[in-house]
């Protein structure tokens, strides 16, 4: 298959936005991110407005805001740590498109990755973020940063690594307020996570990995610290460019995988070196992981598509300016159109 089946991808993503198959229950708490993959995919395909009615888009904006945990004057001590967005309404509160203030549920808390994909989904849907409670989200970040500079995803104390450091930085970037982050410590963490091969791991001592390398490079870009944070830009470039085998692998001597066309590709784009890759081989690889009924699979020998690889397949092609696709902002990971919405219409940027 060498043709990009644009229409099939559109129907596949529309189908998933309406109902995800049962096996996605294992990602129930990450529904916001699954929704983001579908919305951003449709947006990059240039089909969000033409395929989804305005009424429905507005209903989804309400659904996203319903997952927001707002400040609660009755219980400020606990509440301060849990503000932001949940991934889904699993904790049991009633639907409220203005967000919920109830903070007496002991197991209800926002999650950094969900806050990030809630904000990007709102921007994609054309919202101006006017219902987002900026100060409470920025304040909650202080409780999530560890002494070593990394971030954990919720105050309930799960693992802390480069993924959530990126989420904290990109949330601050979107909300135009970095006061919730100890930037010096964050930079230190990124520096310490650079491996002997100048790729970047999830943490100090860990193996260089395409996903964590992207998180680190993109964070440094947003913090305006690329020169200080990368110990050797040229050697990191060599590590990135060495990952291409046809498509891209995430680590040395590992098989190629659809999603690394984005993780490695976007990292190179941020470093302004994307033109050094072999476009044709990357394109051909993605045409082989594309499935004929729409969607992308992880690899060539696995032909079952999922929303994550579908999104990253489309995003990977968008980085190469394939026709029929909107251009991608590699830093926030949304279309340039949605990024313009952030800069021109969003309440936290317009006023500055």
């Amino acid at each position: 298959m060498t043709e990009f089946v644009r229409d099939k991808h559109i129907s596949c993503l529309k189908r998933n936005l309406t109902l995800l198959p049962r096996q996605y229950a294992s990602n129930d708490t990450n529904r916001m991110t699954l929704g983001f993959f579908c919305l951003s995919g449709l947006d990059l395909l240039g089909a969000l407005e033409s395929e989804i009615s305005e009424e429905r888009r507005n209903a989804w904006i309400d659904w996203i805001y319903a997952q927001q945990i707002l400040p609660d004057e009755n219980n400020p001590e606990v509440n301060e740590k849990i503000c932001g967005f949940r991934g889904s309404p699993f904790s049991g509160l009633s639907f409220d498109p203005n967000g919920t203030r109830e903070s007496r549920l002991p197991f209800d808390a926002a999650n950094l990755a969900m806050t990030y994909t809630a904000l990007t989904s709102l921007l994609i849907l054309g919202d101006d973020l006017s219902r987002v409670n900026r100060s409470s989200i920025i304040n909650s970040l202080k409780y999530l940063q560890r002494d070593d500079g990394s971030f954990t995803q919720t105050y309930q104390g799960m693992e802390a690594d480069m993924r959530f450091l990126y989420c904290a930085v990109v949330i601050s970037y979107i909300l135009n307020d970095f006061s919730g982050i100890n930037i010096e410590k964050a930079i230190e963490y990124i520096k310490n996570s650079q491996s002997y091969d100048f790729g970047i791991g999830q943490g100090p001592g860990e193996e260089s990995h395409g996903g964590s390398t992207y998180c680190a490079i993109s964070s440094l870009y947003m913090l305006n610290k690329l020169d200080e944070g990368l110990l050797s830009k040229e050697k990191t470039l060599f590590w990135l460019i060495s990952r291409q085998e046809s498509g891209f692998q995430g680590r040395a001597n590992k098989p190629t995988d659809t999603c690394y066309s984005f993780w490695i590709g976007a990292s190179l784009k941020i470093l302004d070196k994307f033109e050094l890759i072999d476009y044709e081989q990357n394109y051909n690889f993605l045409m082989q992981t594309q499935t004929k009924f729409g969607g992308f699979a992880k690899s060539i020998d696995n032909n079952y598509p999922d929303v994550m690889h579908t999104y990253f397949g489309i995003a990977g092609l968008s980085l190469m300016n394939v026709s029929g696709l909107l251009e991608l902002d590699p830093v926030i990971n949304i279309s340039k159109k949605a990024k313009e919405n952030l800069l021109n219409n969003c309440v936290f940027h317009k006023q500055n």
Partner: protein
Amino acid sequence: MTLEAEVWNDITPIPQDDGPDPLAPIAYDTEYTKAMDYFRAISQKDERSERALELTEKIIEYNPAHYTIWHYRQQILFSLNKNLYEELEFVKDQIDNNPKNYQLWHHRQVLVEKLKDASRELPFINEILNDDAKNYHAWTYRQWVIRTFNLWDDELDFVNKLLDKDVRNNSAWNQRYFTIFFNPTKPTDEFLAQEIDYVIEKIKMTPNNISPWNYIKGIIAKSNKDINILEGLCKEIEEQNIISPHALGCLVDIYESRARNGSTADKEEGIKICAILAEKHDTIRKKYWEYRKVILVSL
């Protein structure tokens, strides 16, 4: 395991309120919905009981990535003073079925922190690595165990065995670096000299394996040695008519560093090799080697 109605008859289940037009709703299995409805009801009261513990197990069956459920389960286990060694067995079975799930590995870490006993950990991780020697979660956890419980002594032997089995295992090379350079006992110069010999042998075995090339460049930089010491190795590979883009790429690095110190001959040699890599031996990185060539020309 099924949820028995009589255990729950004092509880009014709370359904999920997903609003009029939800984003990406999931076609939940009825059993999962039922279990979550009970969870919503009892977690609001922070109930910590045997039935709550069983309920978390039921939910985990469908959604092992449910970090809130794991957090709830931990609170219940600690409140009921449960035998955490039994819980280690439970999480072992879970990881066997889901070896790439962040929450499971984190749960194990929470238990071991609480127990302050890591005696079962390395054998357990070895089993997981036996199935997939590149499992990132297993390595992350292994590094935590080694650092926290100071278990550095046998790690190099372990890494040696993994590299004997698969010299292309980059995770094992990374662990080698971790074992030597993150160890509180710093390596001696003599040790490092032997280490370089060890890697050179491995490179000679598989000159097209990028992992030891990256590693050797890394330890040379870390021990403040000069990359020039690899010139002999690169030339030797070339003379045997073995085509290794890694050896050629290493020569480009060597010549570039000398060209920066003013050597025109090395500059010319470097430009020549960039052209060979771009045109013949590493064509997927054609544009990269042309970029390196432009840098050399500008020196």
